[in-house]
């Protein structure tokens, strides 16, 4: 699965994106965030307050309980501040 990171989520993890084989036991957006948080210190800091990290699944906004299903791309990022 292609995983992208933006803004301070990207900075904390130290990567703009990566290709990861996600275990089948990880079924939702929130579960993936929790699973990523265990991968290392930068990940832990990025997801330390999971409520402020947003996600998009295949370029559409997703909720914590949205199923990953067959999505090919997921992005994690802070609340948006454009406009």
């Amino acid at each position, binding site marked *: 699965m292609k995983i992208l990171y933006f803004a301070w989520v990207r900075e904390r993890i130290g990567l703009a994106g990566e290709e990861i084989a996600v275990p089948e036991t990880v079924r939702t957006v929130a579960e993936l965030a929790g699973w990523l948080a265990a991968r290392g210190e930068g990940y832990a800091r990025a997801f330390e307050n999971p409520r402020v990290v947003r996600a998009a699944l295949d*370029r559409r906004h997703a909720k914590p309980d949205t199923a990953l299903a067959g999505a090919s791309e997921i992005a994690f990022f802070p*609340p948006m*501040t*454009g*406009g």
Partner: protein
Amino acid sequence: MFTVRIQSGDFDAAAEAARLTQGRTDIGAVVTFAGLCRDDDAAGGAPLVALTLEHYPGMAEEEITRLVGEARARWPLLGATVIHRYGRIVPGDNIVLVVTASPHRGAAFAAAEFLMDWLKTRAPFWKLEEREDTNDWVAAKDSDDEAAGRWE
């Protein structure tokens, strides 16, 4: 005509508005919103040197296109243009443009405001503030969530 563009370069608000109206006689109202980089002098803070706008390529254009579709479903629009810049932007420069055209002013105003409110909370852009002493990501504002919420 409905157009969404994500670009690093500046835009010409007048040319974009003119493109919506030229050769037509059914448009009665054109509302243009330009959002600029402002040196807001946060209380006690150092002056803003620049903003750097990061975005999610692909999704930014897709999400704004969905918002334009939602605006068209709510108001009788005859045209709309949304342009959002990314990259480094200094105070006084343009950031975002929304132009709406309709037979009537109420629809043009409402659609432009709707698009701006939703852009703020849904379009995948993030602002990094570069000040003389620090670089900080701008925090999302509760007031923006409230502004977007009034259209639900």
